[in-house]
Each structure stands twice: as structure tokens, then as C-alpha cells.
């Protein structure tokens, strides 16, 4: 089936099965590899993208149900200048780094709605994003830092 999607501001038409998750449309059809596969059941957050500004798990979102603009990690900023991306680099957050695209997308959506989140707000927003390497201390600090510069 053909589906027309707007991804990072660009409209594109893909021909896929209707139940193909957005994650695999992004990765295997559109060849955008920034959004990551971790669990396939919405339990780790590695595949987080924005749809209409909300953080959603692209592994659980069928392409047929995508009815608003999609933003991926590649489109969060043109040059890595988003305050969340900057804070992640300044605090040297990543270890293996595999989860960080999803962490950053969730954090960016949080800050878009709450410019000064408490630790409790961060816990609530970020709990669906697993970091297997355990960089939570730095993620928390980086969100506070990004909030200060938004």
C-alpha cells in the first residue's frame, strides 16, 4: 500500500504493508538509521520519534496510523544544535550510545512542554527509555542543563 508521510519536513511516499511499523519504514525503506530497534514491543524507548510533537514508540506505530508530521533524531536540528543535543555532548553522556537517540527525543518532547522539569518530572517522562549502560545520572543532569538553556 502506498502511504504518504512527512518526515523531518519532507513529504515522501512509501509502498509497504499496512502493518509495517514506522520504525522499519524509517530504517529499511527510507534508510534513516538514527531511530533504533531495541525490543520491538515498546518496552525500551530506543525507537522514540516525535509525531505531532509527541514522543511515541515507532516500533509500535503502524505506518497506516501515522497521520501527522514525524520528526526523527536526524531532524531534531540541522546541525546538532538543539539544546538537548548540546547538553548531551557537553556532559559526555553516552557510553555505547545506542539508546541515546531515543533518550534525546523523549527529553526534547519533555522540555517542549515543561521548560523546567523537576527530578520527578524527569523520572515520569524518561522511565520508558532504557539505558543498558546506565548513564541515567548524566541524562538527568543533561536534561536540567538543557532546560536552563532553552
Amino acid at each position, binding site marked *: 500500500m502506498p502511504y504518504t508521510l512527512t518526515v523531518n519536513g519532507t513529504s515522501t511516499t512509501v509502498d509497504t504493508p499496512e502493518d509495517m511499523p514506522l520504525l*522499519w519504514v524509517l530504517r*529499511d525503506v527510507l534508510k534513516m538509521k538514527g531511530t533504533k*530497534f531495541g525490543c520491538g514491543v515498546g*518496552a525500551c524507548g530506543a525507537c522514540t520519534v516525535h509525531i505531532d510533537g509527541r514522543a511515541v514508540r515507532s516500533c509500535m506505530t503502524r505506518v497506516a496510523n501515522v497521520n501527522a508530521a514525524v520528526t526523527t533524531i536526524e531532524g531534531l536540528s540541522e546541525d546538532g544544535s538543539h539544546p538537548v543535543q548540546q547538553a548531551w555532548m557537553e556532559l*559526555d553522556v553516552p*557510553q555505547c550510545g545506542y539508546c541515546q537517540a531515543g533518550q534525546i527525543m523523549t527529553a526534547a518532547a519533555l522540555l517542549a512542554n515543561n521548560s523546567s522539569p523537576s527530578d520527578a518530572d524527569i523520572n515520569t517522562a524518561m522511565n520508558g527509555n532504557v539505558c*543498558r*549502560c546506565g548513564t541515567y545520572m548524566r541524562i538527568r543532569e543533561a536534561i536540567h542543563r538543557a532546560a536552563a538553556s532553552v
Partner: protein
Amino acid sequence: MKAETDTTLNRRTFLKVTSLTGGGVALSLYVGNREGQAQFGPPPAPPTPDVYITIKPNNRFTIIAKNPETGQGIKAALPMIIADELDVDWNQVDIQQADLDPKYGRQIEGGSTAIPSNYTTMRQVGAAARAMVLEAAADFWNVPVDELTTASGVVHGGLGRQATYGSLADAVSRLEPPDITGVPLKDPADFKIIGQPVPGVENFQMVTGQPIYSIDVEPAGMLFAAYHKCPVFGGVVESANVDAIRALPGIQHAFVLDADPDGSGRASGVAIVADSWWVANNARQQLDVAWNEGPTAVENTTRYDEQAAALSSRASEAPAGGGRGVANIGDVEAAFADAAQVLEAEYYFPLLSHAPLEPMNSTAHFKEDGTLEIWSPSQIPGLANPARSAGIENDAATMHLVRSGGGFGRRLYSEYDIEVAAISRRVSEERMEAGLPTVPVKLLWTREDDMHFDMYRPAGYHFFKAALDGDGRLTAFRDFVPSVSSVVPANEFPRGFVSNFMANSIPITPFSIPTGALRAPSTNGVSFVMQSFIDELAVAAGADPMQFRLDLLANPVPEPQPAGGRGGRGGGFGGGGFNASRAAGVLEAVRRMSNWDAAYPTMGNGRGLGCAFQFAHAGYVAYVVDLTVADNRQLRVNNVWSAVDIGRQIINPSRSRNLVEGGFIEAMSHMMDWEITIEGGAVVQNNFPEYQPTRMSHAPSSIEVEFVLSDNSPTGLGEPSLPPAIPAITNAVFNATGERIRRLPMKHDGYRWT
């Protein structure tokens, strides 16, 4: 004398210089043939020098990162060492990942070995390159070398003379290289890069979503494969409806691969190949496979548990003979008979899966000319088994090392390379038969595949008995381990600090589940049981648990016969045996950091402090944990203090702190939720909902890290930070509530995170 000179010459290790087209010079490490090698078998192939440093005319420096990167930060750490001795600025350096090649020596991520086994060589490489640049400048200006200085990739010659390394590259390429072992190294006080917090070299790529991971590798025309294996370990495909699968929309290939247990080790399965991975994987739902499950299908965790309990009646049996991995020092039975107090306790920790966030995958291209190219995320990359699996010779295969999304020991086992090699060959053959060009194939496992087909951290059943005298001193310590490939703590503390010590083991059979190394192998579970039982002894002795450990460490007990292999468990790599003063050093540090002496007596009523230490992979780590346990067994880690002794030099403090925090957070997963259980010879757990990792809301308020700099060679930190975190937490739970945690994971006792 002459013979000695020859030996030196034969063993010469020097830099080789190659001038580059378009300017610049490449400096490679050349390890000369060792004497005797030529006397046996065919003459060795001339060694190819491994390029480590390229000096470019624009004064930029490309430095090779030789080891696989899984998140431990080695891609920065080894080049940092070279760059510092070369005396260039870090921002003048471009890093290039090496391919797999024997010329680089060991290219392994495992055992926290990269720093201890490369630190000196990497320094020598950088220092020798700098020495050549200096010599070129000295020739050019006709001044003695010792009048020259360097900084930021520039040679200064007094009188305002200066020359960039890049401008000297040509001259360097005409010099006779020095033997690198003779080149003086920097005074560590002059390090400019080593010891500085250097951010991860690919942070920008990570935060902008660039395709740097193994799962992102996509050479032109690539197809995607799923591989469906028998959930029962060792089970094989008898038949499968591959014709029907092949007829599904989007499926390009579907076929059965036989098991190859005596060759590559490949497991039997059904390969499904499509032009998107989701289509290939989704077709597994239509698969109809007849399995021969084999003998492992009778195995269950409850059977292992029952056997362990039955075997515990033999806990007093002394180990037969002087076998490795067991110990029998003094006479524990006599000490038990004489004791003022005897304590017994049963401990258990389960099988664990590694669960790195990037599921297993690998990419391969079997080409028309019979060669195989592999892009591998392996921690211990090797060509032999993938080549065997594809039915080709080793030298027909090449391998690129690709960054992986986490290792933790999982990628020490490379079944994905072995599977994709055979899948790629079959796909290429089918395509060639159809008159099509060959294309690369990526194999990707699901999270469920990853959890079902791991090499699991072995479980541990520990039956302890120990004795205290009337003064609360430890007089005997015994551990009995009914073993499922388990670690027997035969060389662990308190061995060497108690007069009577016994560790023995009897295997549980059958046990056919594949086991392997998980971050901090051997101590990741053993630290929990040993440091917890020692805590029990401290409490029974009426002692402060911190002081009880320090008192033990201060009073070594010479053993009547050579211990043999002290430090083999937990020591293992690069650091020699257990050093009591280093262990005491990290304990004293956390005691001070946490204000233990003042705080410990005030605890109780749901607030607790716990401590533990561990010697692992040549490093010493101690923790103090401050936590709160609510009435409903909700646990909250408040503050954590960690002291770490990994020698006199921390290469990259930013990454080192991150590894300590990460080790602690991982330990919280092991402790609260993680377990793999077996039913019918297969793994029960499927995905993260049944195998919950630590999450943001569980993370402590703070983890304070202090590096105790002892005068020892620098060693690794990937592993040592994990093991003692678990007993530090469970000991704090006891301190808070009086309830001793003897069985992991704690969720089975009704605990959960706040």
C-alpha cells in the same frame, strides 16, 4: 655478548615510515621476528607493519583505534595515549577504526584488558614518532636534538624557529626509525591528554543519529535476514515449510541451514531473507517447523534447584585431590567443633542474559569470486568460524570492526557472524544461479532471539558455613557449590585471611545451557554471596562490618602450602594477585567519603548503610550505599560512594566515572529483577517486560566516585565497578530492616524500587 646483541636485534620493535602520495607520512609499528620462529614449520610471513599514526601536511594526525568499541570508550582511550606522547593536541587528531588484522595483535574487548595490555606500547609508539619528528627538525636546523621542544604538534628550536610536524613529514619519511623500546617516555606529570576528561569520539554522530552501529551498516543492494532456531538448546530443524514461506509477498529466499556443531558451531535454523527486515521477520509467524528438540528438552530450573538442595548434604566433603578451582586449607571441621559460634547460610543467584540494547546482528557479502566480507560488532572478532560456516578458507574472508550498541560480554560469542556467513553464501549462490549479482545480507535477531539464545551468566548455589571464636574472630570459612558451570570462589577473600578455608563443588547433571562471560565474569555473582556472608559474620561477631573487613585484611594468615593461582579468580588479567593493602585502601576511602563512622550507628528503621569491596580484573572497588526501605518493601537508593584503585593513572576520568556509575546501575538490574529460568530446555523470559533493566526513576540521587591512585600500572575499569555494588546494596537492606537478602533477584521476596 654477541648472542645477546643478536637477540636484541631480532626482537627489535621499531616504527616503519612510509611517505604518502600527496604529502605526509605514515608511521607503523613493526615487531621484528622473534628468534626460533623460523626454526619450526614454514618460515613466517613477513609481518605487515600496522599503521598507527599518519602525519598530514596540514598538521592533522590520524591515529588508529585498534580495538573494538562497545561503549567502554577504548576508541578514545588508546589514541589518547599515543597522542599525548606524540605531543599533539587532541583536537588535531582524527581517529580511524582498524579492521581485523593479525598485524594489530590482540583486538579484543573483554576482561578489562585493553589498558593493561596496550598502555606501554601505545606510549612507546607515540614517543618514538615524536623522537623522529625531533630528529628531522634537528637535521634541518642543524642543532642538537636536546635543544628542541615540542607542543601542539609543533617543534620549537629557539631563536623563534618553529616547524609543524606536518612540514617535517617528508624529512621524517627518510629517517632510520628508532627501536621504540629505547625511546624515553614522558614524565606522567607532563601528560596533557592522558588524565583529562575526553568526551566520546562519536558523541556528535550519536546525538545526531548518524549510522555508526553494526545494525546501521547497509552496503548497496543489501537484503535483510531473520534466522529462526529451535527454542530448546541443541534442537535441530527436521523439516520446515520453506516453499510456502518463499511464496509470501516480499520474501526473496527461505531455506534451512544444518547444524555444524563440530565445525563452526553453527546452530540449525530456518533463514528468511527479504528486502526489509520486518517483512523477513514477520514471515516467521507463518513458519511451520518440525523440530528434533534433542536431550536438553528434559531440563528445568526446578530440577537444578532440587539437585542443588540434595547435593548440599555433601557440603562437608573435602575436595578430592588437589584439583584446580577448589581449596582445602587447614581443617575447617576441627575449627567448627572448637568454635564459639558457627553460622550457616544458603545463597543463590540465577542465570543471567546480557541484554545489550542493540540486538545481535552482523552483515556479510559472499561474492562471485568466492570471498566473504563481514561487518562485525564482535568483542573478540575472528574469521575462522565464519569462514568455516561459509565453507571457505580463512584467507578468503575479511572483516571490518563496527561499533556495537553494548557488549557486556555478549559479543564475545559471535554466532551472528557464523550464521550470516552461511546465509550470505546460500543467498549469493541462489542469486548467481538465477543470473543475478550477489548482494550483502544483514542478519538481525529480535530481542526475543537475543534473550533465548545467549551464553548465560552461570547461576550460583552457595552453601556456606563459618566459625567465629569467642573474640569474634573468623576461624573457619567453607563454601560448597553444587555447580551449573558455576564459579567456585576457591581463591577469593577471605582465603588467605583465615586459618581454615575450604571451597568445594559437585556438578549438577545434566546441565546443558550455554554459559559464558558477563561483565566481571566470576565475581559478578560471587561478590554478592561472599561479601554478604562476610557481612553476616561481622554482625554475628558484634563488629562494625566495615571494621570487620579491615581487620581481616590487616591479618593475613600464611598458608601451610603454596596457594597456587591466588588471584586467578577475579584477578585473571594483567594485575597479578590480591593485594590486601589496596583493598583496605578503597575501603578506608569510602569509609571517609560516606562519613561511615558517624552515620552507621544512626541507621535502622528503614534507613541503612551497607559496604562491600571486590578485587576484580586487577582493580579494587569499594562501595558504601545509603538507602531507604519503606514498609511495603519499596527500595530507594539515596546516595552511593565509590572508591576505585586501578593504578597510578586514570586515562580518561570522564569515561571512568561513567563506567563506575554504569556498573552500579547494572548491578541494580541484576539485584532486583533479572533472572533467566529454564523450562523444557528453553529460556522462559522473552523480552524486557519479563527482564526489567534499571530505569531512570530507580537511579540513585548521587554516585560519588574517588580514584585512589596507587603506584601500580593502570588497569581497566569496565568490569571491576559492577560486582561489589550488589552486596553493598543488600547489606544496606539488612542494616535498614534486619532482613538478610540471600537470594536474587529480590523481586521474588516482594521488593521493588520506589
